């Protein structure tokens, strides 16, 4: 069976270094299996998060050879035999230890998103939505909150001063999902600019590139939100809305 050198980051905020482990792999193994093998043999205290090992919970995010990925969905046969593979924590977030970082930033941002406020139901008490009405938002609901998009987003990663007013790609699609919910009554288009900082996004699309769920974060989430903001300053749209007397949503 092929053998690899795993160059794993070990350390805490006080200091750390990459440490090499020689590991023999078995058929079909993924990077997370290799990390578990290191834990079971050489380094029982090697810290790493994981849960489902099936690409569904989004816990085992790391940077493998410098690319943000899920360890459980990265097959070892992706690499050349004998290759040295670096495994680093998701560097955008403060380090706790080894491969584990403090992702509480994301949980704070989650709380700030104005929640769903539903229309009243149909006269028979039921809510009706057609499949085509929920398709767009369902794509965003696939998000497993691995926070790889937040990790790779250069606004958070390289320009930390913006963190207080920048929500990041994960929450742009959360907001877009609410905006496209067929029964919602809250207008978040102004809010997404003033409170979520969508204007800071320069649509360089790294979030989309790293998304393990292949959600079109930029094309289907961020850009439509930017366009909805543009609607608010578009006189043509303003006139059309006046003309149609369209019922507006309540601002967040």
């Amino acid at each position, binding site marked *: 069976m092929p053998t690899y050198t795993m160059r794993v980051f070990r350390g805490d905020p006080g200091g750390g270094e990459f440490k090499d482990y020689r590991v023999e792999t078995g058929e079909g193994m993924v990077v997370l299996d290799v990390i578990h093998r290191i834990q079971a043999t050489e380094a029982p205290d090697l*810290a790493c998060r994981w849960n489902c090992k*099936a*690409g569904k919970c989004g816990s085992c995010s790391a940077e493998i050879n410098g690319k943000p990925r899920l360890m459980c969905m990265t097959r070892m046969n992706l690499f050349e035999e004998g290759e040295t593979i670096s495994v680093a924590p998701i560097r955008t977030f403060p380090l706790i230890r080894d491969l584990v970082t403090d992702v509480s930033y994301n949980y704070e941002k989650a709380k700030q998103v104005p929640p769903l406020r539903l229309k009243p139901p149909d006269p028979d008490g039921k809510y009706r939505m*057609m499949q085509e009405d929920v398709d767009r938002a369902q794509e965003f*609901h696939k998000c497993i909150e691995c926070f790889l998009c937040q990790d790779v987003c250069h606004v958070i990663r390289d320009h930390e001063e913006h963190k207080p007013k920048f929500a990041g790609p994960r929450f742009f699609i959360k907001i877009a999902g609410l905006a496209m919910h067929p029964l919602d009554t809250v207008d978040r288009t102004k809010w997404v600019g003033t409170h979520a900082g969508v204007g800071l996004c320069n649509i360089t699309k790294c979030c989309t590139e790293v998304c393990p769920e292949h959600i079109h974060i930029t094309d289907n989430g961020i850009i439509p939100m930017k366009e909805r903001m543009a609607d608010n300053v578009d006189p043509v749209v303003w006139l059309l809305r006046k003309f149609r007397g369209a019922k507006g949503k309540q601002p967040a």
Partner: protein
Amino acid sequence: MATVQYETHEHDVIVIGAGGAGLRAAIEAAAQGVSVGLVCKSLLGKAHTVMAEGGIAAALGNVWPEDNWQVHFRDTMKGGRMVNNWRMAQLHAQEAPERVLELERWGALFDRTKDGLISQRDFGGHRYARLAHVGDRTGLEMIRTLQYHGIHQGIDVYMECKIERLTKDGDRVSGAFGYWRNSGEFVLFKAKAVVLATGGIGKAWKITSNSWEYTGDGQSLALWAGADLIDMEFVQFHPTHMVWPPSVAGLLVTEGVRGDGGTLKNKQGERFMFNHIPDLYKGETADNIEEAERWYTDKKNNRRTPDLLPRDIVARAIRAEVKAGRGSPHGGVFLDIASRRPADYIRKRLPSMYHQFKELADVDITKEPMEVGPAQHYVMGGVRVDADSTAATVPGLFAAGEAAGGMHGSNRLGGNSLSDLLVFGRRAGLHAALYAKNLGGRLNVDAGHVQAIARETLEPFNRTAGENPYAIQADLQDTMQNLVGIIRTEEELKEALKKIEALKARARKVGGGGGRTYNPGWHTALDLKSLLTVAECCAMAALERKESRGGHTREDHPYSDDTWGTVNVVLSQRDGVTSLRREPLPKMPDELKALLQERT
């Protein structure tokens, strides 16, 4: 000895576990106006509920107007071979539809029918298409919905925190003591009521679809605090998991594949399920391919395909085929949807399955059959609770979801778990809050007890040359896999108990390297205690029940026995010694009995 430092938080209700049941309980308790703390072992939203794929069983009647709670109740009791707690099965069937609609009001976007209502899919053991679903990622939708609804309800969430032991004031539960996984520091939660929603015990087996978190924490915490466990012999081996490559063996393949038209075949291409229909299901199961095929579109005039028999039957059938030498190359059987449904339909209905096989096994499920086999998936047994209030046998303790026992009898139907989480999660939160409100005053926590737990928790650090925790865990998994698996015998169960005893001795000598900050070796060492506890309970109960029923199959007692059909095996612990007794099932009222007699 030096006193150990710890921080203290006080709440009316503490919920342990933040999967579907825990979140729903916390939301309901908060709605009652009490102060609620939600403690979870992982980050919020990562609980094992995200792995649930197929759907939530609820008799909404959107696809089949004939469906109602009575039919759902009958299906559930029949699936559990009549040893379910009838009241739980009744409440579950009655309340599940409202719980699903409530999720929709909180933002869940289920797949739709043509009329714009929630679509429902077929699943094993359910008479009608009943599972509300979102593709094959229903659990994710459920947990995300509850999570985002929950964070606005004033619940205090304590993430990556592991509870080691419950504390008591006299007979009553008065709190929970544990440590932060991040820092290794200790924390005490004082509470009037504690809800256990910690999930299952799957990590005791080698081939399991469960994550590392499933170490029987809730069952053990309850047992140690003096509460009863029931039905621990009933372990569900879900029939379809990936069997190859070895590193993904045990990864779940949703029953939805069969619900949406997939069939099981052996290596001769034979649809072998037709040879494995038990008498109990003969009346409602098609005995020929033509009728089974017609059933997909005409459920009124045809009987259901045997591919959708309850899970225990399918799992045993697969095992029998493999044993008879008719298995697939890697020791499973074939699950074929590729030749039966168009590629677009498969990708739309089963996106995660498509993705999972493609990325992890280089198999395109729209072109070739999958290789699947059974793996440990769920435990029907758990904390013994009162059906209406979910109260355990110790005052102040409540349990819901997989951690609680009784609802599913000897075998759970697919889709009944997510609805169970919602129905009894809500009831647990409600009754815990009411209990806490009625209690008044304050409860005490014995500081000496807390110090003793803390010292015990730190012991592995004193044994630098101690046993490797991963090795003990692996040996336990081998033991349970080989000796307490799908098919059991008295001899093997006795051997298993002997081995567990030896492993317990080794676990007392477990060592730990490194420090207290996020140290998985230490965490694994600490989880061994609960894992060994539930493994022992399972083996003991399995040895006791001398018959075969649902998720408990004895080679030496291959048939169901009516006298065993009237009792639960109840486990309890006093002074560290686990004992076992039989207790009669609660008596079912006649009008419900009548429902069970109705035509299939």
